[in-house]
């Protein structure tokens, strides 16, 4: 579904990505693992158009995403839950969700709203609350729910576990699995490698801007390097 080839991204003089290539198939959960500064977030941002690569290709179902503005990429069915959630603090929960559905004018919005409430019942209790007042976990739920409102075909998730209590992390990951089962393709960036590998089908390991390793989730979990570097053994 998504295909990234030999991607180079630079911040001024600093090359953040060097020839990154990856693929996400329909219905998969693919995870990108890596340390701080390895280039995980940069990869996601480049896919969703916030950053422009100096080289390489990104194609979604054989259509190039290069030089396509971020908002137009959303209209092609890619939703991005950014790192740090980035919900609109001053908007209410409902308004945040409706912003997720900004490009849509179809009749399915109501149904999708119900679906989000089904996944995150907490949100339906806080509809008129200003989003800035939500707890961290609720904000993460809102961020994911907001992305789902775009009814995307591909969901980019950036560190959904960041700053959350372990109980909440599990709850979020359960939900991600749920969403995937309903047919959503997911590209997941995580530092919490154990959690990520437990739900992903395949994974890539990114080190200083390059793909160091790739394989199925099981293969990666068994890899000695991965175990040492990311699973804390």
């Amino acid at each position, binding site marked *: 579904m998504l295909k990234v080839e030999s991607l180079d991204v630079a911040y001024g003089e600093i090359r953040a990505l060097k020839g990154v290539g990856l693929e996400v198939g329909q219905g998969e959960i693919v995870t990108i693992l890596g340390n701080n500064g390895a280039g995980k977030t940069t990869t996601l941002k480049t896919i969703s158009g916030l950053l422009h690569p100096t080289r390489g290709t990104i194609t979604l179902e054989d259509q190039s995403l290069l030089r396509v503005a971020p908002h137009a990429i959303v209209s092609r069915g890619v939703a991005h839950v950014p790192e740090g959630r980035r919900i609109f603090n001053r908007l209410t929960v409902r308004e945040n969700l409706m912003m997720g559905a*900004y490009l849509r004018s179809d009749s399915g919005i109501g149904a999708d709203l119900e679906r989000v409430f089904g996944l995150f019942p907490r949100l339906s209790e806080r509809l008129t609350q200003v989003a800035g007042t939500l707890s961290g976990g609720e904000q993460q739920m809102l961020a994911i729910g907001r992305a789902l409102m775009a009814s995307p075909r591909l969901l980019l998730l950036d560190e959904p576990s960041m700053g959350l209590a372990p109980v909440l992390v599990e709850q979020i990951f359960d939900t991600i699995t749920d969403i995937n089962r309903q047919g959503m393709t997911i590209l997941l960036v995580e530092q919490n490698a154990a959690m990520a590998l437990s739900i992903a089908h395949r994974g890539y390991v990114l080190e200083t801007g390059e793909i160091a390793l790739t394989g199925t989730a099981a293969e990666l979990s068994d890899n000695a390097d991965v175990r040492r570097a990311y699973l804390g053994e």
Partner: protein
Amino acid sequence: MDVELLIGIFPQVLLDGIILGFMYALIALGYTMVYGVLEFINFAHSEIFIFGAFVGVEVLLGLKSIGLLDGLPWPLVLVLVLVAGMAASGLLAVTVERVAYRPLRGAPRLIPLISAIGISFFLQDLIRLVESLWRNAFNLVYPTMDVLNLRFELSETIDVSVKSLVVIGGALLMLWALHLIVNRTKVGTAIRAVAEDQAAASLMGIDVNRIISLTFLIGGAMGGAAGVLFGVQYGLINPYSGFIPGLKAFTAAVLGGIGNIPGAMVGGLVLGLLEAFAAAYLSLLTGGAFGAEYKDILAFSILILILIFRPKGLLGEVVRERA
């Protein structure tokens, strides 16, 4: 000191202040909306505002020359003029953004500020060039509609004219409409979303550039409406007469908490009332030692005081100041 006099003129001064305040509020909206979205002071807004007044006067003079000024019902004429002024100012604001600000959007923060000041002076002289060619005049007078000049004398010291009611009514209508647009519609929510986080907004599929243009359009249109009302109320405009009210309105926007729409309104009213009361009472209270000319000093002193105790403006709670 003539206490009776002091009390006697109070209601009239209050009314004067409210009219002025609404005027400032309408102009301040343009500053505050743009600031909310781009965190940048659009200095050219004072010319966008006066441009609306010029288009308004041209429409009125046009109507007059074909004899329709008195032929049409006056509310229709007013609406026509307002719409024309709003459209013109809105489009000008969008053009200015496109030409002078968008290319600089990535630049250091003060660079577009200087661009804005440059545009402001450029527009002043451009308006003058066009007007001097077209009308061979510097000052333009708003043609009066007789109905607007009707006055109701409530007491010896208080009277209310129709046009001041029109100004207050018009301003309230505008503010209400803006409130609806920003808080009740999808694009309004999008504007607020962009104001808060452009990148996140673009990830929602919002075309940030279009929303910014839209913000300029709405802010400009509010300025244009203010321009027309300004012309109707005070009667005389020239290419440079937007600058000072613009500066004051900008002050009002900061007073209320810049980037904050209700704040702009509150700030405008506070500043308008302050000015009116200072100008009317200072001389009376000090026996002529300090006169109306100190009104700006008073206004600015109070501004400084308010900002010392509420560094983010009167309603500035929601606006985050970057440390």
